């Protein structure tokens, strides 16, 4: 039942003194849009706490885009932390949007960000707190239309029963079209089913209820989806891809939080997409093609954003900022702009080559904290398997340049359990770290006062949909633990610090990345067992997940570890980023042979299929060919 739109802040306010960090629930931040007159009301929900959700770029983009439409208002919603959620339930206060403090269940459209798989129980929690029926099929005519979108839609089947519609790809235009479609359909008094049929005609929109899941000899146990007869729903829904990226609003983040948030700075998205082709990377495959903003637009946007927000740091964000063809030009200009103001310019990660170090030096000024690189694998053989396109010489040169430029602490990211990995590859992680340490000591000196240290962080590989490794199983728990011990046992120097991710969290992530629609039974059972905030180390409980799995008859370890035949139909084939399965199979085979594939922004087209399928192309403002 649709709740009445009314300001319920007076019911929330008495709870603020009883919870941690009440500033999560206040609204009225600088830059928030207070006029929410509608008459069509949308709320964008980030299924985690305020400080995690507020900096989300996608949500900011959609908030700005929808609020610019005449007659539409868009608010924000976040999941309350467990203390507040429990109090709200006890006091019978439904989940509220921030700007108007109206119940989430009073909105016309509720949009969820699918940021990562581990947020799935938080979506259940949010719907339940909102008093919106959790399953889309249980919603009544007047209930809000609940949609989802974001980076983790590429196997949305296990969460799809909660959504009336799922948007694939870029949302700037598509989300406005979705809202317009719902508004027009409501104005015509269409039935809920007819609204969903209309949504399925919007390009890039997947309506799960219009598809049946078929399990047969051509599929895995999770089956594949086919459109229901007479719905006219497309057999494959292809993503939306915005060709005119540089004509979009370059400063969508205008809301300035009161509290510390996870990325407490102005962010300017300098480019979208990455064509380097790392074979484990879902974002690299699903955000193609590569589209850059011109240098002058980035600099002007940073200037405008800093003046609007008052931030003292601007971050140039993207999947690979130092790949921008005008990266050096942008950083030079920005540094000139902010000189003497105490404003810092930052980039989220460094490329593993001398250009990456040059750019790090450019943004760091005289400040030399730690420098982070991601070789991902220890041996050259395995780096070729994953198409990292980084050589040992690149690593050595980058490290030497970094130490010569004043850095003393080096952090290296690796993954464990990559396809074809052997014990030699694990030992090679330590050897790489040791080599970097030795380079540091040879440059800076060996004494304890030199301050040279290397830390390595090792994640467990999770196979993701629409990557060349989507057919691979995950390393089983016992073997992960053995290799973690091997890593610790072969560490050659106490100056190398090793940390690794919780293998049990990665196991659940792998399961959620792999299962089909039936996986929702597991998610719902896990939530009923008390799972929420699973991405938070102190809240995650593997025991609750295994209890839930036992209840629904699933073997988590077997699911995660299962390989999938290359010719099997996959549960996510009907929701496509337009990267062809043929390209992914070819990349899988090249991985097995240890053959690398160059990126298409420096070399010729690699035939991933995105550009011809979607009628788009790379939009590079300068020249990348001179830089490798």
């Amino acid at each position, binding site marked *: 039942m649709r709740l009445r739109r009314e300001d319920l802040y007076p019911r929330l306010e008495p709870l603020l003194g009883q919870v941690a960090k009440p500033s999560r629930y206040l609204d009225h931040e*600088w830059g928030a849009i207070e006029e929410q007159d509608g008459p069509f009301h949308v709320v964008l929900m980030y299924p985690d706490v305020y400080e995690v959700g507020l900096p989300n770029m996608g949500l900011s983009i959609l908030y700005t885009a929808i609020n610019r439409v005449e007659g539409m208002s868009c608010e924000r919603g976040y999941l309350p932390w467990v203390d507040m959620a429990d109090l709200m339930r006890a006091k019978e206060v439904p989940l509220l949007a921030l700007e108007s403090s109206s119940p989430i269940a009073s909105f016309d459209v509720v949009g969820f960000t699918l940021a990562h798989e581990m947020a799935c129980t938080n979506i259940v929690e949010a719907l339940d707190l909102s008093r919106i029926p959790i399953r889309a099929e249980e919603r009544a005519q007047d209930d809000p239309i609940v949609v989802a979108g974001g980076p983790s839609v590429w196997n949305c089947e296990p969460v799809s029963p909660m959504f009336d519609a799922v948007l694939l790809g870029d949302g700037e235009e598509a989300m406005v079209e979705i809202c317009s479609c719902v508004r027009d359909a409501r104005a015509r008094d269409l039935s809920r089913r007819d609204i969903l049929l209309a949504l399925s005609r919007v390009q890039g929109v997947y309506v799960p209820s219009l598809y049946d899941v078929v399990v047969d000899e051509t599929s895995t146990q999770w089956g594949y989806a086919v459109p229901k007869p007479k719905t006219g729903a497309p057999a494959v829904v292809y993503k939306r891809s915005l060709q005119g990226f540089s004509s979009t609003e370059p400063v969508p983040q205008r809301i300035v939080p009161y509290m510390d948030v996870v990325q407490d700075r102005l962010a300017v998205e300098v480019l979208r997409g990455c064509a380097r082709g790392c074979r484990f990377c879902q974002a690299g495959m699903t955000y193609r093609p590569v589209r850059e903003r011109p240098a002058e637009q980035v600099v002007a946007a940073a200037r405008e954003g800093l003046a609007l927000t008052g931030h003292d740091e601007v971050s140039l964000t993207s999947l690979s900022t130092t790949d921008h063809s005008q990266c050096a030009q942008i950083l030079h200009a920005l540094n000139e702009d902010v000189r003497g103001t105490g404003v810092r310019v930052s980039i989220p990660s460094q490329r593993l080559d001398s250009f990456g170090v040059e750019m790090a030096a450019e943004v760091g000024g005289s400040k030399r904290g730690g420098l982070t690189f991601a070789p991902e694998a220890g041996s050259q053989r395995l780096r070729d398997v994953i198409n990292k396109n980084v050589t040992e010489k690149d690593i050595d040169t980058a490290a030497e340049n970094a130490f010569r430029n004043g850095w003393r602490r080096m952090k290296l990211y690796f993954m464990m359990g990559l396809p074809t990995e052997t014990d030699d590859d694990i030992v090679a992680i330590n050897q790489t770290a040791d080599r970097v340490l030795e380079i540091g000591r040879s440059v800076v000196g060996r004494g304890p006062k030199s301050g040279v240290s290397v830390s390595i962080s090792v994640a467990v590989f999770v196979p993701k949909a629409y990557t060349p490794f989507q057919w691979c199983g995950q390393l089983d728990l016992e073997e992960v633990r053995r290799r973690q011990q091997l890593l610790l046992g072969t560490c050659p120097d106490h100056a190398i610090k090793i940390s690794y991710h919780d293998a049990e969290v990665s196991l659940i992530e792998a399961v959620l990345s792999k299962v089909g629609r039936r996986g929702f039974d597991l998610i719902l059972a896990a939530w009923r067992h008390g799972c929420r905030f699973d991405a938070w180390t102190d809240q995650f409980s593997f025991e609750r997940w295994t209890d839930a799995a036992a209840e629904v008859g699933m073997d988590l370890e077997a699911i995660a570890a299962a390989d999938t035949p290359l010719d099997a139909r996959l549960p996510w084939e009907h929701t496509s980023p337009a990267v062809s399965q043929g390209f992914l199979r070819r990349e899988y085979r090249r991985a097995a042979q240890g053959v690398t594939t160059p990126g298409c922004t420096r070399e010729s087209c690699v035939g991933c299929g995105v550009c011809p399928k979607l009628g788009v192309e790379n939009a590079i403002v300068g020249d990348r060919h001179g830089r490798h």
Partner: protein
Amino acid sequence: MADTSNQSRLRVRYRKDGRLAYLGHLEVLGTINRSIRRSGVPFAVGNGFARRIRLQFSQALPVGASSLGEYYDLMVTERLEPARALRMLRDATPRGLAPDAAAYVSRRLPALEAWVNRADWDVTVRGLRSADALAAALADLREIGELHYMRGEKPKSIDLGRALVSWDVAPCEEGLRVLLATRSSNDGALRPQVLLDAAFATERLAADVAEAGRPTLSVCRVGQWHEGEDGNLVEPLPTDGEGA
């Protein structure tokens, strides 16, 4: 090292009210830092490693407490008319923290946090009715002198003989209205919640609290001053100087 001799010290008074009463001290600091950057006021930047705005604040307010008069001192590189600076700052600050007065003060004054050492508080206590019992409990506590309490997991103590200057308790529509005058020092500042929690735990009030439950408070700092050695109270903002 940058030359700071041309810098001026602008003192700004601001409120903390409405929803923003629930901001913590660090959140207020962060918000005002950004407001200053947005305002266009020519702020000075320190020479330290982090290159921060040269800015000092009066003593922290507890989360949930509102205030009619908080202060910060901002070093500026250009001596704008105070009225103009105030307008620029107000236009760039969220309403709940809006500045309402500004004036230049001597750069030789001690740091604001230590210099402003007296405060008046207006506290509404919901859930208690006996003004006499609460007043008597406060008198008992003052008589004892040293108040021991926990701040998180840390044991703390404060000398009420010095920190609690005066109190007045009267019935009001919502329960009781308590007016407190407090004095801070290097040893710490007395928070009304700490004092009243201790009063609620005394025998004089134990039965009332057991019956009605733990009282809830609305706390507002209504004024702050510097107490000179002669005991006179000095307004933080000069009334006859360059003020707005």
